[in-house]
């Protein structure tokens, strides 16, 4: 089953990393990523720009506000889609990612609908 791994962390901290620190974290994560790719489990993954670059459309009032929807201690900074055998397996992968990138949390949620972006695919 596909799981979404939602990556939360303190944005001020992550933005405080120097380029070297950032590169070091990404290199460690890359090891885990490659392992999952080899197993054919690694789906799309993305890292978001800081919340300050985005805006939120509040649907009812058609109101656009700068910044994230929720002002939280930890912001949503990115996510993975990973093919897991179940929640236990998903959590063990989350632990591996966490060892490479401490701080914050991974919220792990089964994917209900996956549209990979190709026409006519994924409607099931």
């Amino acid at each position, binding site marked *: 089953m596909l799981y979404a791994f939602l990556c939360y962390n303190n944005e*001020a*901290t992550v933005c*405080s990393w120097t380029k070297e*620190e950032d590169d*070091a974290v990404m290199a460690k994560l890359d090891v885990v990523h490659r392992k999952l790719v080899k197993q054919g489990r690694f789906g799309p993954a993305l890292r978001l720009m800081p919340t*300050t670059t985005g*805006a939120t459309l509040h649907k009812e009032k058609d109101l656009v506000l*700068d910044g994230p929807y929720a002002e939280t*201690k930890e912001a949503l900074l990115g996510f993975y889609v990973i093919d897991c055998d179940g929640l236990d397996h998903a959590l063990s992968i989350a632990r591996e990612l966490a060892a490479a990138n*401490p701080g914050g949390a991974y919220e792990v949620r089964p994917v209900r609908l996956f549209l990979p972006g190709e026409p006519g695919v994924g409607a099931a």
Partner: protein
Amino acid sequence: MTDVDWIGAALTAARPQAVAALLRYFRDLDTAEEAFQEASLRALKTWPRTGPPRDPAAWLIFVGRNVAIDSVRRRARQEPLPEEAQISDLEDAEAGIAESIDSGHYSDDVLRLLFVCCHPELPGTQQIALALRVVSGLTVKQIARAFLVSEAAMEQRITRAKRRIADAEVPLPGAAERGQRLAAVAAMSYLVFNEGYSASGGEASARAPLCEEALRLARLLLRLFPAEPEIMGLLALLILQHARSGARFDGQAAIVLLEDQDRTLWDSAKIAEGLALIDKAIRHRRRGPYQIQAAIAALHAGARRPEDTDWAQIDALYAALEELQPSPVVTLNRAVAVAKVRGPEAALTMIEPLGDRLSGYFYFHGLRGALLLKVGREEDARAAFGRAIALANSPAEAAHIRTHLDRLMADSVAAGGAK
């Protein structure tokens, strides 16, 4: 990252909030700084074992406040408290505090701290030194190195700044004044960035952290004012300029001009973030100097080759900037674009009237020399380059002009030989 790395990053990130809250409690910068220092030491001891707290700033505020209060009491009673028991008390309490500290105070606290550092009574140099010491947490030694003064002199500058504002009550100003003070904080961040950005050669490594600190300050400002287009513009401007830092100097630490830079060395992720911020700022339809300068930087960043640069648009943006913020330096920058769009004669005509006001300005003579060279007035060009070298702020600047002069010499020798 190792324990120390992530703890360091967390402490750096939490510092403005934590020092700001401690300042609210103690109403004294030195006490607030000492309390933060003490709390950071506890964090270095505790966090490797417990992992990072959910809210590092709240942890540091809580611990810093208690430590400072204890030390005041201890001094009053003249009897030491059992150190270990005190630490474990703090740890027990830590779990529950993250939520109990009112995070609503955070933005007001940080704002007040920034306003204190940019107090109108302080000259710019003291504002910068104070902000780097108190908000960014650079050591006096680091700041002294960055500004090429002795540690003692910098220590004195900071002490003097603190004394000057010690008695100044700093309530949060009302909306109108807040805008003015925000502009002062933005300007301070921009100055800090330029101090780092304009450094070259041997100084560059000592001053490069200033760029990082300025970026951090601008990010902090935008988190405090998420809907302020000029702050978006400021951050975009700093990010876009910083994105080019990998290409700005060659192996010998000499300046590489924008048009000669290896554009593959530009940081594309940073450029994308800068563009996103400008895009967002423009939606507010309240243009301002930082947004315009960021838009100019974006046009440079967006050109894959120098010849793809949209100079006409840059000319138009500088014209808009001249209108908002008339200054001979802006006109001088505009002349660079004008030279590309309408030729060197038009650019020369534009900058000649600036001679009086910019006679002591390195770039004026450098640009004038280059333009004179293009229209074939070699003798005048040589004189202008000579003035520029005499006014250079750094060896790299002087070296850059010297290459112009050398080329001029080589050309005239070649031309003489051809006759």
